[in-house]
């Protein structure tokens, strides 16, 4: 039985236990690499944990549940269901006991690969939200205790933008590629391994890969093309070890950019408009709502039986928190960026201009 404790800036703490066979552990590799920068070397007192995830090879639902659509089993603070995505299949159970969440997963071999993306990431977001914090889908940089966040869907160029700015000015430090945690006007770094793929690799990173890593990446791209996009494997690179002196620390949120790529081919039009906080909160929330597909669906189904439960009110809380944690001194911008300019110098310089124009 493998057991890990994760502690993210003392804001949330959780435990993951993996009771699957050694064979499936060996085949699917280290599932929890995603949290490698926040592993706690000591075990944490059970009662201090926000949630506990158990991966098992045996999961039976509890008795006496309400049954919806013949596949969702619910009770107050409890749900169980079976679900699938392509050939990934899983059973999931969620149980709330004394203000703590216990999640049990029974995935098949393929579903093991999605455990972080489909479930744990959402649970981290959910637990932060319960405690009044916010977590947003963005990459982030910090300079002189001011942080700049780039929020966008995947492929909108937010990673390239951060790395691009870092490569032209080394006083920018990295706050993370995927998520930032916001607490009352401050953003905390949240460093997860970068998902590298042939289409999003920048020169900055390429220079930091060794020969083996480069070969692996080409191999994975080839599989992606051969399977017509069905099998998508990323190469992971941990910024905390690959460019450790470039990691920033908690700082005041100064500017937040929402990036919307466009397919405009005619003009060179990069449009950057200042927007109200209210609008920014909505963009960020819809971004988050699109991020995860399965857990939010379970919450909707749960909300049919228990509409006033905190599980059902998650998105409402999420918006409330954003309103509080993005304090009134933060400036918000919406960038309409033609997709062919996503990794361009032109875009980089325009945004750099706004950042440096205090």
């Amino acid at each position, binding site marked *: 039985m493998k057991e890990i404790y994760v502690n993210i800036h003392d804001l949330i703490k959780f435990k993951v236990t993996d009771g699957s066979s050694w064979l499936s552990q060996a085949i699917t590799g280290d599932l929890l690499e995603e949290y490698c920068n926040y592993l706690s070397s000591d075990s944490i007192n059970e009662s201090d944990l926000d949630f506990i995830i158990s991966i098992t090879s045996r999961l039976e639902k509890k*008795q*006496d*549940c*309400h*049954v*919806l*659509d*013949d*596949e*969702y*089993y619910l009770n107050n603070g409890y749900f169980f269901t079976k679900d699938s995505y392509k050939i990934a299949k899983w059973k999931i159970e969620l149980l709330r006991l004394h203000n703590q969440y216990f999640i049990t997963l029974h995935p098949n071999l393929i579903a093991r690969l999605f455990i972080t993306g489909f479930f744990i990431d959402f649970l981290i977001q959910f637990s932060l939200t319960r405690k009044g914090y916010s977590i947003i889908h963005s990459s982030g940089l910090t300079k002189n205790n001011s942080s700049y966040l780039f929020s966008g*869907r*995947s*492929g909108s160029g937010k990673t390239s933008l951060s790395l691009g700015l870092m490569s032209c000015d080394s006083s920018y430090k990295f706050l993370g590629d995927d998520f930032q945690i916001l607490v009352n006007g401050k953003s905390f770094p949240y460093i997860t391994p970068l998902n590298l793929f042939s289409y999003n690799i920048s020169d900055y990173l390429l220079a930091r890969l060794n020969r083996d890593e480069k070969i692996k990446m080409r191999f994975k791209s080839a599989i992606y093309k051969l399977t017509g996009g069905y099998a998508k494997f990323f190469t992971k690179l941990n910024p905390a070890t690959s460019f450790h002196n470039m990691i920033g620390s908690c700082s005041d949120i100064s500017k937040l950019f929402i990036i*919307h*790529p*466009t*397919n*405009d*081919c*005619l003009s060179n039009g990069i449009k950057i408009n200042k927007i109200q906080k209210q*609008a920014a909160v*909505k*963009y960020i929330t*819809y*971004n988050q*709502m*699109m991020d995860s*597909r399965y857990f939010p*669906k379970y919450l*909707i*189904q749960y*909300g*049919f*039986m228990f*509409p*006033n439960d905190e599980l*059902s009110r998650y998105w409402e809380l999420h918006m409330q928190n954003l309103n509080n944690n993005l304090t009134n001194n933060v400036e918000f911008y919406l960038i*309409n960026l033609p*997709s062919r300019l996503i990794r361009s110098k032109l875009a980089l310089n325009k945004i750099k201009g706004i950042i440096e124009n205090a």
Partner: protein
Amino acid sequence: MHKELSYNLHNILNFKIVTSSRLKILNDLNFMFSYFESEKNNSDVILNIGKFTPSDEHSTLVDHKYHIKDNYFYCKDKEGKAKWEVEIFGFEDGPTHINFHSVIYGIEQLLIPDYLAQNIILRPLLELKLFEKGYVTLHGLGIEKNGKACVFAARGGAHKTRIAMDLLRKGGYSLLGDDRLICSQDYLFSYPLFYNLVKFKAEHMNDEHISSLPNKIKMIAHLNSKAFNAKNSSLFTNKARFEKIFLMARKENFVELSYSDVDLDSLAKAIVNSNKMEFISSGISQSLGFVPFYRYMLAYSYVFPDSKIATYWDNLEIKIKEVLRGKIACGITLPDAYSPALFIDLFNLVNGA
């Protein structure tokens, strides 16, 4: 040859399906809105099924996949064994024009080639259009007697069909809808989908195990007989006064019917969640049971967060509260097994005893 089918939803909404599919065998499964077929009309919504070239220039791209501009949506998508391409002009403001092209790698491509367009795009879109006109779609069973109607709002698997059939056969009620209803402030309107399927269940089936193979064959045979015509039936009542609503769910190892109070606020929220689920998954076929429309709305909302699409769910909740204010409402929990005794309890309940 193009085939053009016009529909009229209770004079509230007109729509039209244009398709080039020629197959006749499973028309009743292929075209789910057959109950509302009508003469040619001025359509609020037109669904065009077949290959098309999108006009998606100057769009905002979400996830490299959804092409979005003001009142416009386009994407190429796939799920399970289906692949499709959809373009919607007038996504949030009518008139609405949908282009849809799909390929299903399975027998469905031959039997029900136009089903996907209706189930994953047209059906949810009609709900938005109905809402724009002041009507709310409810997911549940609606029954009528003496012009008064009562709704059992429920998710799937809550004995809806059996209750419907028993109230129909033994209770002297008629059906408003076996699965969906349209409601206004005072009235409920019928909204049967797959009308002939429901009719077949009502007229020819004693048990509700429609999914067994002999029954499926029997059903298909019936659906293809000419005598089985949608127009000459009194199975459904079209309109009745909205009096009562029950929020219903089944519970395991539960012995008898139980009641609970439900406040207006919770009731409205529960119904909104049920409607959301219908935009995520729903359908007669397991393998084609997905509905991506909820995601499409999210993608559009991410680009236009103040649009009608983005505010739809919040406004729906407000409207539902408005509609249900003053109606008799109650939550009911049903036991696992359906029994004659349960039917008597339910019958007494709807009769106000």
